[in-house]
């Protein structure tokens, strides 16, 4: 033990004696361990940690499954039957996000709201801070109006006073009585992928949407449930299929072909980012390997310089093991220092990096350093120490005596550098693979940005608008008039070129769909056997506001009103799918929701609904437009509580926001405007997770390139130092400076090219793991492979050039004298 202590003391002294060497090694290790710890803490928080609910593995997400659409919504009547008929869940709850205007408590403001059924919080085991959860029956239509509010809203609006219970909150003009406060520790994105935390939770019965009672309505309702103890997810699936099949018998019109999709809640919440995060974890693993190889090479170089020290130690009777232990102790000390520094970097850097990258990472709040992360860091530090310490330690215990002696006589010198050269090749190959990954992401991004979204995003402003709550109770005519007034007010703003209100689906945003069948055909027995299309409700100005092209026929006009015959406009995709080889104009279709027969009057260009990169993959692409002016009374009244607006302007969207606020304020001080976003921003946001993977992989690849460059530079510098004598001999024999430059750079290039060669093989083998993250780019994209090869070669030449220059400056005489 005391000898070990001696070793440690001596090791520390050695580290202190070569501060620059120690700093380089420790910082390199800290970089490698730091990014790994950071990435692991993200993966750990997001993917590995269980959801923060009691017995979270019993929680599942439940969706309605239709042919072609595995995770669709569940209608309220079906949900009630599922809840009643199943034997596998101890409870089920429905949810749906929405927005509501809060009035009567200072400035009117828009709140994030979630409609829920009674068991929502009990399933999750979330207990209110004060008050209570919803009781059974309180969620039904016609039940007393109640609401749960978030701890944040409670503090902001009520100063966290217990008096809040029983108080009435005016939401969309209706009074709801506060029954409980949801703790701030509850995050909705642990239940719904990517969901923002809500301000209020409202029983679904308070929605006031007549379609709620329609069995065939798709209102975007989804469910969570808790498995009964001992019930497996497969048992739940078969139980639910019995339930849905018997419902299909009873309600063939609506429920034929309808099933239930059940996923573990964890998977449903994090599935979206799973592959990205795992690819990133793999990528940082490479960075660590490169860092270790670099350090190993530095140590090898140094051990060569210390061979005399070791020889003396051996001569004084130190056994192999004793000498090796000394080296291992120093190695462990460096790994420990590197790990500690890496941990500090990760702990401080991760959150700021996530914030700087503007990532909408689910459960990002769960990212942090916990015992598992500490264990991981310790683990990789030890792993790193073994990895970078092994080669030098072995080198010392197996000194090649004959070779060493021959070297004294200027004999062979090649073998010693072979390990180092091999290491450089490995580094280069790994950097190559990471660069390929980043390059493929970059190409993907370029491909996506080149996708024509079908609209002209520049100078288009979108926002949401809620009329004063008082309007909610008025007649459809009054709402219609208010909408017209809003449109005119906005159209009169300076710089405005076109305005349209928008309802239902919106490109890269809301989704809404409906079913129809062709005129002259019998009505299909169930909605799921009808044709299926995305549905947009817009005003005449929409085409110009969005910059969508008109292909045939006409778009809507002011003359399309509730009193004129119902008309619709379809997109090219719709026309091609449902009217192949025919002119759709003049054809009529039966709309299932409204039971109307509508005439197709125009065909417009297709727009990206699902995302620039994912539109083609979606089965639902046909697009159908309704005239806002022809909207039925019921949905028209609903639109008062929140409607979308699109404006094309000659000025930048940011410059328009102020005047929009002012102008709408003149219409009514009780209105709420929120969610200003330009179409350019919407596109950019839709690519956020792509950008996240691109930037992250890019950063890792850059780190890898830097380390590999340092590696090749370090090894060549070392070799040049070792070979001063040889270079002097060559110069004495007539080698010019350029010959020496060529010699050293050439040797670097051999290493770099070998690295590129192995990298090519590795890249071809590994890029298929990122293929799910690519778009219109092959994992073997030749352009990427060629560019990265050239980039790496150029960087390697640059790295070789400095030691090569130094070699060319060798004074042959001095080099020869130094024997």
């Amino acid at each position, binding site marked *: 033990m005391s000898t070990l202590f001696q070793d440690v003391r001596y090791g520390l002294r050695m580290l202190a004696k070569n501060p620059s060497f120690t700093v380089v090694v420790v910082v390199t290790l800290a970089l490698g361990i730091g990014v790994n710890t950071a990435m692991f803490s993200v993966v750990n928080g997001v993917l590995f940690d269980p959801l923060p609910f009691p017995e979270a593995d019993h929680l599942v997400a439940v969706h309605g499954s239709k042919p072609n659409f595995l995770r669709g919504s569940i209608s309220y009547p079906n949900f009630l039957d599922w809840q009643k008929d199943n034997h596998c869940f101890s409870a089920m709850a429905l949810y749906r996000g929405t927005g509501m205007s809060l009035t009567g408590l200072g400035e009117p403001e828009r709140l994030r709201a979630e409609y829920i059924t009674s068991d929502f919080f009990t399933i999750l085991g979330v207990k209110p801070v004060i008050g209570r959860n919803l009781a059974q029956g309180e969620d039904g239509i016609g039940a007393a109006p109640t609401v749960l509010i978030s701890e944040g809203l409670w503090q902001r609006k009520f100063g966290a006073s217990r008096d809040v219970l029983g108080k009435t909150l005016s939401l969309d003009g209706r009074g709801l009585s506060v029954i409980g406060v949801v703790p701030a520790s509850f995050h909705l994105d642990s239940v719904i992928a990517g969901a923002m935390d809500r301000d209020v939770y409202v029983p679904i019965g308070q929605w006031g949407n007549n379609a709620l009672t329609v069995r065939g309505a798709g209102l975007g309702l989804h469910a969570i449930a808790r498995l009964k103890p001992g019930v497996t997810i497969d048992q739940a699936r078969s139980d639910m299929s019995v339930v849905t099949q018997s419902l299909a018998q009873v309600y063939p019109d609506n429920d034929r072909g309808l099933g239930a999709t059940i996923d573990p809640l964890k998977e449903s919440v994090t599935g979206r980012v799973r592959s990205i995060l795992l690819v990133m974890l793999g990528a940082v693993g490479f960075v660590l390997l490169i860092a270790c190889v670099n350090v190993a090479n530095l140590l090898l170089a140094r051990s060569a310089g210390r061979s005399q020290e070791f020889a003396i130690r051996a001569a004084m009777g130190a056994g192999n093991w004793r000498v090796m232990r000394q080296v291992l102790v120093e190695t462990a000390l460096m790994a420990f220092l590197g790990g500690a520094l890496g941990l500090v970097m990760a702990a401080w850097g991760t959150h700021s990096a996530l914030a700087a990258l503007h990532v909408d990472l689910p459960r990002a709040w769960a990212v942090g350093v916990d015992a598992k992360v500490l264990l991981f860091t310790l683990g990789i530090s030890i792993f790193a120490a073994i990895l970078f310490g092994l080669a030098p330690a072995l080198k010392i215990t197996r000194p090649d005596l004959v*070779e060493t002696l021959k070297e004294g006589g200027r004999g062979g010198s*090649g073998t010693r550098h072979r390990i180092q050269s091999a290491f450089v090749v490995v580094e280069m190959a790994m950097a190559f693979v990471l660069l390929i990954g980043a390059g493929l992401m970059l190409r993907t991004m370029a491909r996506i940005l080149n996708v024509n979204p079908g609209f002209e995003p520049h100078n288009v402003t979108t926002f949401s608008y809620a009329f004063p709550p008082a309007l909610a109770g008025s007649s459809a005519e009054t709402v219609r008039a208010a909408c017209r007034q809003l449109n005119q007010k906005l159209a009169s703003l300076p710089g405005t070129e076109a305005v349209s209100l928008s309802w239902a689906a919106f490109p890269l945003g809301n989704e809404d769909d409906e079913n129809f069948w062709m005129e002259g055909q019998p009505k299909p027995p169930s909605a799921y056997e009808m044709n299926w299309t995305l549905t947009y409700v817009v005003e005449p100005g929409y085409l110009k506001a969005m910059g969508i092209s008109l292909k045939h026929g006409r778009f809507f006009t002011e003359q399309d009103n509730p009193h004129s015959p119902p008309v619709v406009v379809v997109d090219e995709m719709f026309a091609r799918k449902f009217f192949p080889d025919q002119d759709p104009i003049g054809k009529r279709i039966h709309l299932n929701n409204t039971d109307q027969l509508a005439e197709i009057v125009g065909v417009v260009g297709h727009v990206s609904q699902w995302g620039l990169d994912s539109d083609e993959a979606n089965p639902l692409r046909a697009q159908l437009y309704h005239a806002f002016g022809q909207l039925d009374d019921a949905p028209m009244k609903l639109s008062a509580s929140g409607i979308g607006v699109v404006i094309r302007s000659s000025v930048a969207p940011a410059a328009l926001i102020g005047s929009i606020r002012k102008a709408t304020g003149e219409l009514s001080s009780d209105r709420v405007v929120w969610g200003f976003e330009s179409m350019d921003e919407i596109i950019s946001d839709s690519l956020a997770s792509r950008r996240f993977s691109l930037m992250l992989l890019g950063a890792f690849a850059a780190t890898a390139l830097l380390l590999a460059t340092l590696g090749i530079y370090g090894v060549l510098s070392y070799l040049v130092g070792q070979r001063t004598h*040889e270079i002097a*001999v*060559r110069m*004495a024999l*007539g080698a010019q400076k350029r010959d020496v430059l060529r010699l050293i750079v050439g040797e670097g290039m051999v290493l770099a090219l070998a690295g590129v060669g192995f990298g090519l093989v590795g890249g071809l083998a590994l890029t298929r793991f990122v293929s799910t993250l690519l778009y219109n780019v092959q994992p073997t994209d030749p352009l990427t492979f060629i560019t990265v090869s050239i980039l790496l070669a150029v960087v390697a030449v640059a790295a070789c050039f400095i030691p090569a220059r130094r070699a060319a400056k060798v004074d*042959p005489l001095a080099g020869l004298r130094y024997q």
Partner: protein
Amino acid sequence: MEPTTQSKPPAPGNGGTNGHTLIHLDGVTKVFFTDEVETHALSGIYLDIRRGEYLSISGPSGCGKSTLLSILGLLDSPTDGKYTLNESPLEALSISDRTRIRNREIGFIFQAFNLIGDLTVYENVELPLTYRGMPGSERRQRVQEALERVGMSHRVKHYPAQLSGGQQQRVAVARALVGKPSIMLADEPTGNLDSKNGEAVMELLRDLHREGATICMVTHDPRYADFAERTVHLFDGRIVEETRA
């Protein structure tokens, strides 16, 4: 050893170059400045070396033999004085020109052989020709000839570490003569060899001289000095005596 006669600057006319003179040193001095100490390694060397001559330089340690050889070999330049090789003055040449002349006109044989460990025997001998940009086929022939000349043609694929000292020095001699230089400079070529191998190398040099090579060799060993036609004795940076075999 006491110097018996003081060497004098040769009389004008005697020191001028003529067709037979390969090298002409005229008052060459070399001063090293280190740590505020001036070392006068050479103080006024007047020396002619004729084509085909076998000259040996001897003297006590530190008298300037290696320094003189470095200047002759264009590895170093004199602090003062004139150096004329093949009737052309070398003072104003660029480093690159000096390198080129060194490559073509000078062949080196070192005490420590100075073969390059990573290169085979063949490649070591080929090196001076490579730097001359000679075409491959011609290089092959020359290297073959040179290795045959020193009796090492059966070892072309070996690495220096696989050869004995004597063999290594013979390869080094092959490397010195492969470029057909005007002069071969040897600094203690037998210093790292046992007497048997040393003698073999000396005999090789004598044979080369008989075939017409110009050789200038530094040696401590009086036996080997006798191989040369002429020996100059150096003391304290000056030529103090000349003896002829």
